[in-house]
């Protein structure tokens, strides 16, 4: 009998038994019980830290001391030692249930120790192998053997480097270390290729585009009446920039409420039907963008008979962006800590109030990130606009068709780049690269905003 009452007292009603006293006394023996017994919100938010005994309670309910302790530690190898020591209390605090909002902070601080300490021997064998293989391969490749070409040289230099590096390492190290060094060298060079490629793509685009970009008229004129062969100080890409902004703007107006609304529906309302919606949305992320364009082309232009306009391009971009935004918004809302939502519901707010006051404000940076990544895709994708709008040469602000004009296509940046490059005229290609550089800058700006928002989120919690 007494046992039953005791259990109910702890799990059901917090009033009869003061929670803090039970926990502090029973903590070493029945820790899991304590973890189950006290709801996190009550425990964390209750102002009762004052009345209870100061020493033990602070340790339990307020994670701040331990957290600051971790964060103030220097980020060197010493950190690791402290963290290993600090890990157990952290885990316990998590069990007690009130460190939920603190999680990201402690996760950021959990840097692994640096296992790449390098001795002089390591550095010397690396740089020595690099230079000696360069010299050796240069002599063999260009002076003795009848080879030419830079690609072959670099490949052989790399192979020679690996061989010499392995040999040098093997002189004073066991085979395990040789393998480790070789693997490290191969992995690092793979990463180097990837980031080097990204750099070449950006530098190449700007390098070829700078010629067109330097003309001030490039941003203030359109191409009406300008021939593809005209010099670069005539004409510009204003129409493409305006077209891109209008088309993507319309696409945002369509996809933002639908995407985020669908994500809210899937997470906050739920039910069996929401699983169907989620499945379909995930399936549609597999839709190739050109098929999305072809769908809008067939329905809007061929079947319904509308001319090729900016609105059709905007629709195609929307169809492409909607699953991307809905899916990432879904992920963002799903990973929101459930404690916040539960706290709001427990305080008696309705679901709508919870969504409006708690869920959406909490995940706003994540949603912004999802949106901007979707926009970056939408701005850069060429194939939907290629199918649904034409590469016009003049500036138009209206995405709709004008009854006086039979065709009123709206150009956009990726489409302009595509048609310019396809023309084969060197001067027009230069314009295309200029437009590509503008597109790249646009994506970079969107990207920096995304990063900034994402960092904001970590800082706020």
């Amino acid at each position, binding site marked *: 009998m007494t046992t039953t009452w005791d259990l109910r007292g702890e799990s059901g009603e917090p009033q009869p038994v003061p929670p803090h006293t039970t926990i502090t006394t029973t903590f070493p023996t029945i820790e899991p019980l304590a973890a189950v017994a006290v709801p996190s919100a009550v425990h964390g938010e209750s102002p009762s830290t004052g009345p209870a005994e100061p020493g033990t309670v602070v340790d339990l309910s307020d994670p701040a001391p331990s957290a600051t302790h971790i964060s103030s530690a220097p980020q060197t190898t010493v950190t690791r030692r402290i963290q290993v020591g600090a890990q157990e209390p952290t885990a316990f605090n998590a069990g007690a249930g009130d460190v939920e909002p603190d999680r990201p902070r402690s996760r950021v601080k959990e840097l*692994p120790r640096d296992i790449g300490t390098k001795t002089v021997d390591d550095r010397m064998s690396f740089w020595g192998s690099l230079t000696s293989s360069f010299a050796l391969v240069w002599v063999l490749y260009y002076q003795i053997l009848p080879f030419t070409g830079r690609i072959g040289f670099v490949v052989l230099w790399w192979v020679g480097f690996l061989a010499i590096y392995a040999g040098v390492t093997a002189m004073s190290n066991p085979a395990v270390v040789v393998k480790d060094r070789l*693997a490290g060298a191969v992995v690092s060079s793979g*990463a180097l290729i990837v980031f080097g490629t*990204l750099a070449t*793509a950006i530098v190449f685009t700007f390098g070829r585009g700078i010629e067109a970009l330097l003309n001030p008229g490039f941003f203030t004129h359109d191409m009406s009446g300008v021939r593809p062969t005209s010099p670069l100080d005539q004409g510009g890409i204003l129409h493409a920039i305006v077209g891109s902004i209008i088309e993507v703007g319309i696409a945002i107006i369509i996809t933002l409420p639908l995407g985020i609304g669908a994500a809210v529906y899937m997470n906050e309302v739920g039910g069996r039907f929401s699983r169907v919606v989620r499945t379909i949305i995930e399936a549609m992320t597999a839709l190739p963008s050109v098929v999305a364009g072809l*769908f809008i*082309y067939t329905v809007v232009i061929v079947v319904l008979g509308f001319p090729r306009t900016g609105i059709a391009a905007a629709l195609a971009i929307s169809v492409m962006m909607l699953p991307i935004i809905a899916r990432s918004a879904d992920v963002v809302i799903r990973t929101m800590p459930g404690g916040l939502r539960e706290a709001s519901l427990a305080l008696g707010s309705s679901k709508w109030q919870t969504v409006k006051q708690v869920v959406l404000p909490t995940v706003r940076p994540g949603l912004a990130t999802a949106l901007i990544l979707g926009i970056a895709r939408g701005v850069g994708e060429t194939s939907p606009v290629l199918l649904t709008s034409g590469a016009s040469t003049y500036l138009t602000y209206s995405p709709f068709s004008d009854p006086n004009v039979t065709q009123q296509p709206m150009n956009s940046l990726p489409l302009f780049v595509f048609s310019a490059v396809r023309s084969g005229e060197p001067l027009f290609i230069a314009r295309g690269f200029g437009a590509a550089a503008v597109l790249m800058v646009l994506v970079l700006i969107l990207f920096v905003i995304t990063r900034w928002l994402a960092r904001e989120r970590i800082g706020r919690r």
Partner: protein
Amino acid sequence: MTALLDPESDVSPSPGLDDDRPRSIDPALPRVDKVFHASALGIGITVLVIMGAIGVFLGWQSIPTFKRYGWGFFTENQWQPEKDVIGISAVLLGTFTIALVAISIAFPLALSSAIYISEYAPPRLKNLLVSLVDLMAAVPSIIWGLWGFFLIQPKAIHLAHWFHTHMGWVPFFHVDTDPEASSWAQSRYAASAFIAGIAVAMMVVPMAAAIMRQVFSQAPIGEREAALGLGATRWGMIRAVVLPFGRGGIIGGSMLALGRALGETIAVVLIISPAFDIKFRPLEVGTESVSALIAGRFGEATSNQLSALLTAGFVLFIITLIINTLAAMIVSRSRSGAQTD
């Protein structure tokens, strides 16, 4: 003890006095919530209808094509609407050739950069590198197309020629021209699936690398430390802990990348020159992919041809859908063991 096991006997017989049945925590919804539920459901249905309509429309449009051409649609290689000969076998083969070239280039690069970021990179650089990978994913495909066409193609021609000269006995590297000729035909090596594959590879590397890195970074810290504590080198730890743990991520990430590579359009259109032969010679000039076919032929298509193009698009969509679904399953299964915290 019996009292404990059987709570019914413990409850006093009069209901309502000490009734400890749980109260209903699902009361009638307030009006605000009814409106909220209804409108959220409405948005959900709208999205479902829009998305579902595309799939249904594509499938529905494919019916006449399948009726007209039957299985010949998959076995015929020519695309000559004027002669009423339409089939996608060569196009599908070209699509897969480009995607395979792309994946075989992208896979080692993505794997090594993912390992580098999660295991080798100095902690201070790590976040920067992660954002760089994301930035690479955000670079518009047209820019990779320009990069491949203007920067890579002139060099890749020589590379292809070298492959042909020295490894031409492998059917994969064969090109239908004489490699030893004093002035070898550069145009035979241009505009090939190989070059398109390089450009597409750069588009899918960040995608695969991001997924792989995410899975690698979830490898349990305890096992890493155990391996290191037992004296493993860094590579030993990676091989014993990180790679086995991340196998699902490696496979799934590459498959997602493959799905993306199959649907890539504009870079392929820029680089390749269309050809409808059944061949598996990626170094040789001329190939065709489904998306490039759609982008190149939609303009002059009559309604019949349009439905044939839609069918080709539908087939492509189904293929990417299957690949993506499999990949998502593999990735999520590999992550299911990750929740150790």
